[in-house]
């Protein structure tokens, strides 16, 4: 067992003091001299032709500096299918569509001006569900693709399938088969800090965007394309990331409001701030996709899984964001949660006139795990096998190569299952609470833990720069959004370089200073940053030790003089220490084989200053090193659904005890046990925070949350009608345990830990409800109404 000085400790997050003191600056807190306030005129129809836009009244309102429509400005096209534009012309396809925008000297004037914009529409019939969108003769959301080629259906051009093994033979050979339809609703990321940005140009046409983003470098590329469209080819787009009030996937794409801020800043030559209200956040940002599943799973007489067949249909809404690629991530669990020899996975993503969807934590995994883990319990019951035993029989093992080609070098699933069952006293308790309407349920998870390759590079760079005082300034392109990236990165740098955590200073994320990074998603932040940091720290240590060879003897003598010490002839020969004999720990250079004497230790800042001010002018040495880490992964072939997309895989199990009120249908959670294989705990405080927070979101997904829409209009755009779990709702113990499998690809053995918490919570709860009262709910959330209806049907 390796002994670490800092890894695995509860050290508080480095930016904690500013956050608890109200000093951390979010977009909403930042002002620029001369700044204007932008406001967007959104569509008033889910699907309509724009006949006429009258901006005259808005333009003549005092304090208004610009009013723009799609007819006044160059087209800024975005989205990975290039199917979206900043300001719509011709027709609107959703209520989120941006039709016009205003910049004014105050938010109030901008709001009033937007209300004065008059738009004549010719309403068109819309499609508001996959069924409607796929019906014969359904109205088309898009008539043409980005190249102008005609489109003939609402099915999005995104293919993601997997077929391995002989499905029909496996079905026939199965002793037991479970079959069911499951669904999950749209939910909101519901970041407490609403979306916003500030765009500004210098007088040479260079752009700076202060953005609430998880993808500073991909945003830089998108904004550079926008500059090109504005005739500013060759100008620089810089993305600066302020404190982020939660993101959970909402920052994984660039947004219409950002392009509109750029257009308004370009038109007015002033900084323009765009700040969403809560209502706008709910109505005009993009939620998590809903999904409908058909799932069949089979097993033999002993409970060994024989096949898994999944068909998923998703209502994407009107435009493509990265959220349209949820099935890519669903494949991980669909093919590789438990050992399943035969897999069939098909996905259909459709355009509708609902608000378009985007990423949220887990990105398809909580959705597909809802179907798989509910269905596993149904299959176990058919086979007469305890659900825990069923999972143990089929648990993945270290070294498995799954049907998708995922290389499970380390896998702690079996241990997670055992610990969960033990903590819940599963063998004695499950199945015995029916009289008290209490029940136990569990569900497992697999999640990418070593990046998730969806672009040709899944890499991250880092720069470590030591100053003359032994402080490390870190430039990293990943984003701290509350998850604890900086907590983990601080500890990994202090551990790998040999400095105190308080000597590590992470710079604000800025594309002008940080090396390229693909984005903070897929639980990859700490994994990537850590591996890159270890690479840079290794080089930096070599550089320090090489320089120390020259200055160490003088520094020892200075220390001796300072301490007034005289040393005898048999003392350690500090004059002939070579670079390979040094070590650096907690900011002190020392020689491990030498006796422990105060004069033989040199403080790092003193050493660096000695080099810097040496007679040879520092010998041309800077103490800055960079490193780029590209994980050993494959970009999957989505036509086959095959490829080892992550360097490692996190596993986990959540067990839940519930009580169901059979008079009201209300589900009360009594206890959650979450055991997770995260490879290694890096920052224990941040890791626990990720797990608690993920589970809380999982409980919201399971019991409360749903965006309700009617003909494309969101009916509950605020916290009054959209229920987030409160501190009083979550009044049950959450018991965390971590299984440290020490993955060889992970920094210090760590796997990603950002997403696992939310993944299996909902099916664990639903399985517990089934144990308690014998009803199986197929559609999230498990509202009292649904549970009560199911209970009444059970009694009828």
């Amino acid at each position, binding site marked *: 067992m390796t002994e670490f000085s800092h890894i695995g400790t*509860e050290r*508080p*997050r480095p*930016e*904690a*003091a*500013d*956050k*608890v*003191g*109200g*000093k*951390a*600056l*979010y977009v*909403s*807190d930042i002002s620029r001299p001369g700044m204007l306030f932008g406001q967007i005129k959104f569509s008033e129809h889910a699907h309509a032709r724009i006949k006429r836009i009258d901006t005259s009244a808005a333009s003549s309102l005092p304090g208004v500096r610009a009013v723009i429509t799609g007819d006044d400005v160059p087209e800024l096209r975005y989205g990975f299918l290039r199917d979206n534009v900043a300001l719509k012309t011709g027709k609107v396809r959703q209520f989120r569509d941006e039709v016009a925008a205003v910049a004014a000297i105050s938010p109030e004037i901008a709001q009033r001006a937007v209300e004065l914009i008059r738009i004549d529409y010719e309403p068109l019939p819309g499609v508001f569900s996959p069924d409607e969108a796929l019906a014969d003769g359904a109205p088309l959301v898009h008539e043409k693709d980005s190249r102008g080629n005609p489109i003939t259906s609402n099915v999005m051009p995104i293919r993601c399938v997997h077929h391995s093994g002989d499905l029909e033979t496996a079905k026939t050979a199965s002793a037991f088969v479970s079959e069911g339809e499951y669904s999950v609703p749209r939910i909101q*990321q*519901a*970041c*407490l*800090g*609403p979306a916003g940005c500030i765009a500004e140009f210098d007088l040479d046409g260079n752009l700076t965007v202060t953005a609430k983003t998880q993808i500073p470098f991909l945003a830089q590329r998108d904004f550079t394309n926008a500059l090109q469209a504005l005739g500013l080819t060759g100008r620089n787009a810089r993305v600066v990331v302020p*404190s*982020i*009030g*939660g993101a*959970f996937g909402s920052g994984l794409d660039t947004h219409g409001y950002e392009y509109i801020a750029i257009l308004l800043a370009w038109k007015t030559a002033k900084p323009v701030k765009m700040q969403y*209200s*809560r209502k706008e956040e709910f109505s005009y940002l993009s939620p998590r996709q809903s999904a409908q599943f058909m799932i069949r799973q089979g097993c033999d007489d002993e409970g060994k899984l024989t096949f898994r067949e999944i068909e998923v249909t998703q209502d994407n809404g009107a435009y493509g964001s990265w959220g349209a690629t949820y099935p890519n991530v669903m494949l991980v669990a669909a093919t590789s949660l438990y050992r399943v020899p035969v897999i069939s996975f098909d996905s259909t993503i459709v355009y509708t006139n609902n608000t378009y969807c985007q990423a949220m934590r887990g990105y398809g995994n909580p959705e597909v795990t809802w179907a798989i883990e509910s269905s596993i319990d149904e299959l176990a019951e058919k086979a007469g096998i305890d659900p825990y035993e069923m999972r143990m029989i089929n648990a993945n093992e270290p070294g498995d190569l799954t049907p998708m080609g995922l290389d499970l070098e380390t896998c702690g699933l079996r241990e997670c299952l055992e610990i969960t069952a033990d903590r819940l006293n599963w063998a004695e308790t499950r199945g015995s609470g029916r009289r008290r309407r209490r029940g136990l349920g569990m569900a497992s998870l697999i999640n990418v833990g070593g990046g998730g390759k969806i672009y040709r590079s899944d890499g991250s760079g880092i720069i470590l720069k030591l100053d003359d005082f032994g402080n490390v300034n870190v430039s990293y392109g990943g984003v701290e*959004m*509350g*998850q*604890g990236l900086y907590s983990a990165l601080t500890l990994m740098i202090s551990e790998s370089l040999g400095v105190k955590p308080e000597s590590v200073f992470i710079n604000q994320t800025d594309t002008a200073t940080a090396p390229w990074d693909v984005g903070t998603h897929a639980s990859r932040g700490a994994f990537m940053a850590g591996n890159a940091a270890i690479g840079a720290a290794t080089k930096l240590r070599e550089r320090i030790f090489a320089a120390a060879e020259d200055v160490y003897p003088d520094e020892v003598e200075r220390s001796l003089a300072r301490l007034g010490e005289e040393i005898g002839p048999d003392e350690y020969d500090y004059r002939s220490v070579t670079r390979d004999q040094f070590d650096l720990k907690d900011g002190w250079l020392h020689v491990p084989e030498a006796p422990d004497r105060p004069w033989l230790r040199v403080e790092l800042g003193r050493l660096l200053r000695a080099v810097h001010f040496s007679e040879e002018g520092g010998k041309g040495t800077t103490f800055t090193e960079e490193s780029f880490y590209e994980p050993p992964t494959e970009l999957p072939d989505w036509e086959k659904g095959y490829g080892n997309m992550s360097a490692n895989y996190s596993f986990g199990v959540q067990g839940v005890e519930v009580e169901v009120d059979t008079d009201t249908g209300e589900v009360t959670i009594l206890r959650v046990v979450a055991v997770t294989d995260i490879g290694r705990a890096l920052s224990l*405080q*941040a890791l*626990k*925070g990720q797990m*608690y*927070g*993920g*589970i*809380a*979101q999982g409980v919201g997904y399971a019991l409360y949350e749903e965006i309700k829409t009617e003909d494309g209009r969101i009916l509950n755009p*605020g*916290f*009054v009608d959209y229920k*987030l*779990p*409160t*501190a*009083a709702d*979550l*009044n049950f113990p*959450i018991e965390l345990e971590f299984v440290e499998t020490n993955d060889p690809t992970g920094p210090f053995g760590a796997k990603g830990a950002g997403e696992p918490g939310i993944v299996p919570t909902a099916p664990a709860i639903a399985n517990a409800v089934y144990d308690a009262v014998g009803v199986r709910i197929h559609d999230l959330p498990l509202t009292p109404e649904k549970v009560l209806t199911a209970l009444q049907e059970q009694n009828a």
Partner: protein
Amino acid sequence: MAIGLSFQLNGFLVNVDVEPHLRLLDLLRVVLGETGTKEACGEGECGACTVLVDGRAVNSCLFLAGEVGGTTVTTIEGLTDANGGLSSVQKAFVEMGGAQCGFCTPGMVMMAVALLAENPHPSEAEIRLALTGNLCRCTGYVQIVESIKEAARSSLAARR
């Protein structure tokens, strides 16, 4: 018609003229530039804008600025001492991981201060009840509750 206001803000006297419809939140953030208090919903549902008026926790998004004349208002900026030293409640939030993204944190801390002033030794259930109006999306509240328990413990220890 602007209203002339005089009140104590974080230990200093403030004299300011405000429009009658101005929210206390905007007086603090926009007029006075104290951005520590956050706006996350603007309709009194999330508690991110919680401040103390005469020691009582209020949602500053629902509270008219004109109402604070003659009162003592404390915001998150008022908890730190003149040298930027954190208060005991803030220290507890740091130590116990009570902040993640940090956006709900100033409101959570102010609510915790109000709770502990009224009830120095709250039970977990009392803490959770007090936080019902303060939403957090990051933490699941566990480390926030632990922070408030720690703050109560440390103030008890300090008195002994």
